[in-house]
């Protein structure tokens, strides 16, 4: 291709793009590595999707700018008794299509969240019943006293009853089924932004909802573009095609830091990375070894000793993470400051393995996602080579989340060795016990993410007690003790707490929450 042929054209384009740039000052162009999988707030329970939709839909309560729980669609609430909560709804709120928000919408949404095809049953797991006292009041009765009901309700998004029923979206999308779904591509919430156009995997445009009850920032239009290639992602930011990149690939931090007109915004994220080991099968799968080595505590300890988490932080994570001593980050309620991580020592690991009867180690298959967490693929590879040194041969199956998750989650839990992580959206340890650490009890929606299938009854007991204890300090103590037990049992091998790293244009003010939420109403373009 002859260069002199394009050069002038290119130059012209350069000028033209330069000219149009300032015209769209109030537009916020965001590029992220993934895209919201659906617009239905009750179908995919995936954090990016949830937090994206949190800008369109709203719940009764939400976190404010300072990460405190505050009323959103609920004006206020009172506890009638230990189990009964009465929410007074905010009036003058209308949905994007103009219809007025009222109690029946809340009831409808709760029904919907509990329906067969919903993936949000857990938010109401503790709830006995709910009812509308009047147009503007909703009463919720819990099975037992629930100190963190409000945290639970954070994820419950409210839809418009009429709109949903009119458009055949009364039920959340059945992810199994091959069926059309209106709510997958259309949304009608009460949030500060409404969906203008939606082309999945391509571009989604939001516009500020002028009928919004609260006050939003000065952003009038938001353009979401998923970009899966890290290099492109950064070049887009550097060349000013997007204003905000989340997350920013770690390897590009230095470049963005030195880049003109762009900055790196980072803060600790509540996501703890860990390695899981099968503790419920008698014979581990996809491995030639007889029986299940992981049932032996010494083997689990050996692995903890063998995996040099600090090296992974320094090298793979470019220092953008902090060592995890337990399955929580320090900001989460229930964090136990006294716990320490088993130190890195190949010898200790080897001798432990020898004691356990595996002097030459053994062979195991590790499942790993490549596009879900920061550098997840590389973390796994590092793990593989670290474990190789103590004689444990790991066959790595690293695949995109689309294949990874169906394989490893319920009902099959089809893995015996894996990398995963968890963010307690409630910022309370109990959430971790209920989902990840508690003994698996799928019927009651417990331990659905306890893929390693570990079980420490004493911890379960403490967690259960904490669940119904209203006294904050006592409750925290219980959670801390429970966590200590779990760590002692090496239910999982904790790796690190990753940093939330975004790249942004200088003129953008953002708000980062440890839970990776991005409440756009608090963002500003200067």
């Amino acid at each position: 291709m002859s260069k002199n042929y394009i050069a002038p054209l290119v130059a012209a384009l350069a000028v033209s793009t330069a000219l149009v740039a300032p015209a769209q000052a109030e537009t916020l162009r965001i590029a992220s590595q993934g895209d919201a999988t659906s617009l239905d707030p009750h179908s995919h329970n995936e954090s990016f999707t949830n937090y994206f939709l949190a800008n369109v839909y709203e719940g009764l309560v939400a976190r404010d700018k300072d990460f405190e729980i505050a009323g959103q669609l609920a004006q206020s609430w009172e506890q009638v008794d230990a189990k009964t909560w009465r929410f007074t709804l905010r009036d003058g709120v209308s949905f994007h299509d103009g219809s007025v928000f009222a109690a029946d919408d809340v009831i409808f949404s709760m029904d919907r969240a509990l329906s067969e095809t919903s993936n949000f049953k857990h938010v109401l797991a503790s709830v006995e019943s709910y009812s509308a006292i009047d147009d503007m009041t909703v009463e919720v009765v819990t099975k037992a006293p629930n100190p963190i009901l409000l945290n639970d309700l954070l994820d419950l998004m409210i839809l418009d009853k009429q709109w949903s029923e009119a458009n055949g979206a009364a039920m959340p999308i059945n992810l199994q089924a091959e069926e059309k779904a209106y709510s997958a591509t259309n949304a009608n919430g009460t949030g500060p932004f409404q969906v203008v156009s939606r082309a999945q995997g391509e571009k989604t445009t939001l516009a500020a909802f002028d009928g919004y009850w609260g006050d939003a920032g000065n952003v009038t239009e938001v353009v979401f573009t998923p970009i899966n290639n890290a290099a492109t992602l950064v070049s887009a930011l550097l060349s000013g095609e997007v204003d905000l990149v989340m997350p920013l690939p770690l390897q590009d931090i230095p470049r963005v830091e030195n880049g003109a007109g762009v900055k790196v915004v980072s803060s600790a994220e509540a996501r703890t990375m860990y390695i899981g080991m099968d503790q419920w099968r008698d014979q581990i799968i996809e491995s030639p070894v007889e029986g299940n080595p992981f049932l032996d505590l010494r083997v689990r300890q050996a692995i903890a000793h063998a995996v040099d988490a600090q090296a992974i932080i320094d090298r793979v994570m470019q220092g953008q993470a902090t060592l995890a001593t337990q399955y929580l980050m320090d900001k989460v309620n229930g964090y136990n400051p006294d716990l320490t991580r088993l130190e890195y020592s190949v010898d200790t690991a080897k001798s432990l393995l020898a004691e356990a009867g595996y002097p030459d180690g053994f062979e195991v298959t590790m499942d790993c996602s490549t596009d879900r967490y920061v550098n997840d693929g590389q973390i796994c590879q590092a793990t593989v080579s670290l474990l190789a040194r103590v004689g444990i041969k790991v066959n790595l199956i690293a695949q995109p989340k689309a294949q990874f998750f169906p394989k490893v989650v319920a009902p099959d839990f089809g893995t015996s060795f894996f990398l995963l992580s968890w963010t307690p959206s409630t910022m309370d340890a109990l959430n971790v016990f209920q989902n990840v650490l508690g003994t698996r009890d799928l019927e009651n929606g417990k331990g659905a993410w306890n893929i390693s299938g570990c079980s420490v009854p004493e911890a379960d007991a403490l967690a259960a007690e904490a669940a119904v204890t209203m006294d904050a300090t006592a409750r925290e103590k219980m959670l801390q003790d429970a966590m200590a037990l779990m760590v002692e049992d090496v239910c999982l091998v904790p790796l690190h707490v990753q940093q939330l790293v975004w790249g942004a244009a200088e003129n953008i003010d953002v708000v980062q929450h440890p839970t990776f939420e991005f409440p756009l109403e608090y963002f500003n373009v200067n």
Partner: protein
Amino acid sequence: MYFLLARLLQATIVMLCVALVGFLVFQFVGDPVLSLVGQETSVEDREALRESLGLNDPILVQYARYVVNAVQGDFGISYSFNRDVSEMIADRLPATIELVMLSGVLSLLLAIPAGIYTGIRRKGGIAQTIMALSVIGVSIPSFLLGILLILVFSVWLNWLPSFGRGDVAVVLGFRSSLFTWDGLSHALMPAAVLCLFQLGVILRLIRAEMLEVLRTDYIRFAWARGLPGGRVYFRHALKNTLVPVVTAIGLQLSSLFAFSIITERVFQWPGMGSLLLHAIGQSDIPLLAAYLIFVGLVFTISNLVVDAIYVLIDPRIRHGAL
């Protein structure tokens, strides 16, 4: 025209077979029932469902049904998007088409003159250089080229946008991003990458054909008749060169579609290609099957066009002499 009718018949057969492949993929990669119902569904219910879906009918009947639906543009519903596959294709098609057309035109505009030139002055320095470049052109993997272009034009020079499709404008009822500066600036690099490979292939082909033709008796006779160079090259040689070249270009069209997959991935171009990759990533079989059939269609049509062009250029076909 007998020749074209025969071709049309063949094309139909080809399409039917392509549809068969699509159908088989659709039907047998991943049990459609499993994809329809959760694991927990009881065996009886599944049987019932099979029955109602007609999955127990003789395979030919199912195939026929599939074809009939396909003809009506019904390729089932994507289970990663919960939307009609045909709808999705319709959404993405324009982007790919404009990319393919832009690069196709580019490559022809450059390849034909260059090919003729190198064919005539094969020993010349410029010709040698062009040929050398063309080797690189056909050799360099398009993804590599794409990345390098982004590095140079987006990051270092910051001249061109590095991803995505630009603003769309409507001209004469056509919606395309090629009608806006922004759109063009977005399309330029992807088109260039996509074009380069074709450019190399077509250029080399034209050159080879040119060399062949220039060696024929009727060209020597044309010289002997005292025709001036221009006439010999462009009126006599070129037309004869075109016959095989046209076929190749016909084939290149469908390979343009194939390579657009890679280009679209590198440049985040929202077309059929990225759709296909998404489908593969999600194992979205209905989408895969539909794409398969779609490309088959593209090829078949382009071939029909090629045949039609043949009839125009080559009288021997018109008279059934060939």
